[in-house]
């Protein structure tokens, strides 16, 4: 609060294009202009990276005030009394000439460039009015490098804005990529061919204003204007980074980062971006199966209920287990207890081991709206302890946030044997290794944050983390881990592994759950609701195919308890690619795409409950979850506190 007042006192007033603008001290003229919706072309300036003054394209004319004449708006901090014109003929001419200089060496290969259509250089070239190349001298060329299977390098297109190297070295702490050469020979690359080592290298694709770095996994596949896109949430881990999946012809092509300053900022990790596109898998279950035979939905649902009811009659209550998972969207997860109710089984199982279950319960119950640490909190932390977690696995984007905190001077403590030093090395930061949480001197720092992994964390220690006075970020095994832990803790869900191993479970309903094949042996009736070809699907007598996250709307609750909505990108169905052996798409069109008879898990669960005589809610998120139903997929999401929510909402 004190900070806010402090900033208000120092709010220089300036005039941009005849509009009065109040801007906080320290921001550039470019940002001040953006804050009132005036767009100044820029290449090197990036909100997450700041300024470099390398591209010279953000020229404006200062008409009056402390500075006069043509200035680079990104380099110039606002001052009282500035009068700025972005439309002055001098400024316009300057920008046009800069674009023309940049285009002198830029190849004319837009038709074969994947950036074409989503290229900042293209946009500003056209906007600046440079349509015909006047310089007819030869262009400088470069030799490209192999940068791994994910990123394509085309140095001829480079306009030397330095964004890539600033991101890679300063923001992400990578050391194997840099800038070489001088003058007109400046080269951005590695010393030698080889995959980029940073776990955030994919952001070069997003951040490059032109086509030097393009996504190789979607090379030559589609154009921006043809993309099927929708706001979505990364299903890769419990961080819940905001993404935009890109699809075309019912095929998921690539993942692009989507800005959410509360969660991932501008970037996402390579693990989420270049994850295998499982939604395209031709082996995915696409029709309901009963004993390996294709069946209608009604048949399969009837068979499931009939057989499980037989098991209940034969072995008594509790012989059927319903298993959810951390990747089941919250819509389905919140209905799962109803399904176990109609099947006379106990609380659904969510987590594999007893330790993980207890750690998750402990984590979710000690986190409130106040003490949960968001990514922004991690970035601004004064000290960070990473407790029993390898963030490269459990939440890579937190590692990037940790680096930003470290850059501002926060020490980083790695606690426990499962917090390897390699993870901090991957982002170029130094860390101190400790054995026990008690050793971490969190109290002596301002704004301490503890990042704890439920995978290896000790439940006893987890339960006491709030006593450190630090904000807590607990990492769960899947994108909806917090939601699963919330429901599990409420109903006392037990560990799945132990239940299956005990032999008491005779019937199993696996709802988007990954259960090792050996645990499924000897269970008489296995039913699986899933969109992946998991071991449960392979072992199951009854398979009900569900939609992948990109094929339906849904909600994930991320590690800090933030519920975020994701939207449907693709209409369910087999990708057009591969439908016809001759390579053409089908010539005759049907009303429904082949393999498109998939249903969201919540709907299948709801149907099963209704068929079994229960009364499922009309809408998946209703009752106490109704507040989640109206979430804006492009908003910041809504934080649910683990401890307070059940009574509160």
């Amino acid at each position, binding site marked *: 609060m004190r900070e806010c007042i402090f900033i208000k006192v120092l709010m220089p007033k300036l005039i941009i294009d005849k509009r009065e603008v109040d801007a906080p001290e320290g921001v550039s003229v470019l940002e001040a202009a953006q804050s009132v919706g005036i767009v100044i072309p820029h290449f090197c300036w990036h909100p997450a990276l700041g300024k470099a003054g390398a591209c010279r394209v953000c020229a404006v004319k200062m008409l009056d005030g402390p500075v006069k004449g043509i200035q680079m708006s990104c380099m110039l901090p606002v001052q009282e009394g500035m009068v700025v014109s972005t439309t002055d003929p001098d400024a316009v001419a300057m920008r046009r000439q800069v674009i023309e200089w940049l285009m002198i060496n830029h190849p004319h290969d837009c038709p*074969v460039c994947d950036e074409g259509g989503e290229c900042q250089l293209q946009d500003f070239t056209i906007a600046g009015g440079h349509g015909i190349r006047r310089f007819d001298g030869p262009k400088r060329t470069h030799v490209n490098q192999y940068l791994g299977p994910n990123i394509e390098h085309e140095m001829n297109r480079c306009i030397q804005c330095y964004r890539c190297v600033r991101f890679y070295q300063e923001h992400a702490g990578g050391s194997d990529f840099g800038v070489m050469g001088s003058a007109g020979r400046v080269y951005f690359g590695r010393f030698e061919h080889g995959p980029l080592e940073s776990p955030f290298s994919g952001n070069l694709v997003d951040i490059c204003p032109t086509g030097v770095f393009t996504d190789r996994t979607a090379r030559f596949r589609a154009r921006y204007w*043809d993309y099927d896109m929708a706001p979505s949430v990364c299903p890769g881990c419990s961080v819940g980074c905001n993404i935009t999946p890109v699809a075309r*012809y019912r095929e998921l092509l690539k993942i692009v980062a989507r800005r959410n300053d509360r969660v991932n900022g501008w970037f996402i990790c390579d693990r989420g971006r270049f994850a295998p596109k499982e939604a395209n898998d031709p082996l995915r279950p696409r029709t309901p199966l009963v004993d390996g035979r294709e069946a209608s939905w009604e048949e399969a649902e009837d068979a499931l209920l009939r057989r499980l009811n037989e098991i209940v009659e034969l072995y008594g209550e509790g012989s059927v287990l319903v298993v959810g998972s951390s990747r089941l969207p919250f819509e389905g997860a919140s209905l799962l207890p109803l399904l176990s109710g109609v099947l006379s089984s106990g609380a659904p199982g969510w987590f594999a081991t007893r330790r993980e279950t207890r750690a998750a319960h402990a984590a979710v119950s000690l986190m409130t709206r106040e003490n949960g640490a968001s990514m922004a909190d991690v970035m601004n932390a004064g000290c960070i302890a990473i407790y029993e977690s390898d963030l490269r696995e459990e939440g890579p984007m937190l590692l990037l946030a940790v680096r930003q905190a470290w850059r501002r001077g926060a020490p980083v403590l790695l606690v426990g044997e499962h917090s390897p030093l390699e993870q901090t090395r991957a982002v170029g930061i130094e860390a101190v290794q400790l054995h026990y949480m008690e050793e971490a001197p969190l109290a002596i720092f301002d704004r301490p944050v503890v990042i704890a992994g439920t995978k290896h964390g000790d439940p006893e220690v987890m339960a006491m983390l709030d006593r450190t006075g630090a904000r807590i970020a607990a990492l769960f095994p899947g994108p909806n881990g917090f939601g699963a832990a919330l429901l599990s803790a409420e109903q006392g869900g037990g560990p799945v592994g132990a239940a299956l191993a005990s032999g008491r479970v005779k019937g199993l309903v696996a709802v988007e759950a990954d259960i090792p094949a050996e645990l499924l042996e000897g269970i008489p009736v296995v039913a699986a609701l899933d969109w992946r070809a998991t071991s449960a699907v392979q072992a199951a007598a009854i398979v009900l195919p569900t939609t992948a996250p990109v094929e339906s709307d849904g909600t994930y609750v991320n590690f800090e308890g933030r519920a975020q909505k994701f939207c449907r990108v693709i209409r369910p169905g087999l990708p057009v690619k591969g439908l016809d052996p001759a390579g*053409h798409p089908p010539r005759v069109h049907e009303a429904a795409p082949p393999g498109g008879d998939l249903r969201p898990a919540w709907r299948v669960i709801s149907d099963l409950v209704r068929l079994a005589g229960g009364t499922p809610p009309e809408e998946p998120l209703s009752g106490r979850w109704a507040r989640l139903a109206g979430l804006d997929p492009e908003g910041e999401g809504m934080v649910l506190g683990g401890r307070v929510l059940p009574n509160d909402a």
Partner: protein
Amino acid sequence: MRVVDDITAILTGLWTTLKHILRRPVTVQYPEEKRTPSPRYRARIILTRDPDGGERCVACYLCSAACPVDCISMQAEEVEGGRRRAAWFRINFSRCIFCGLCAEACPTTAIQMTPDYEICKRDVMDLVFEKEDLLVAHGGKDARYNFYRHAGIGVTQPRGEGAEERPPVDVRGLLP
């Protein structure tokens, strides 16, 4: 006098039409007589080849974006050597309005209009032309142009050896 003027006008009109009765009709009796359209006539669309015989079309999607009736669809793919081309390319001539915007948008002069205006089929599905139906063995109107020679990247020639290009920079050189 107005009445006289009006009657004169009517009689002039009658005389004009009477003269036209004796004039030679301009009608072309189509199936028997055929006109030769100009080479720039906009009818059946083809995909041409570059002087080296390679497919000119790089499947950049500009024609399908320009098409006002959405009759062009395609899928781009990469072939050996980094060349980009259409895995499949389809023009639905039953929807095409022959406006020529696709040919205008084409950056590689691959898609061109021809004067062959006789595109009639008994089955409407026969009007859906695939890439094999569209691809011809010649260069069309601009036979000598090869996009990749001017693109500024190395696909058909080693890097730095295309038109208007300098040899690749020696990044490790220390000279200014």
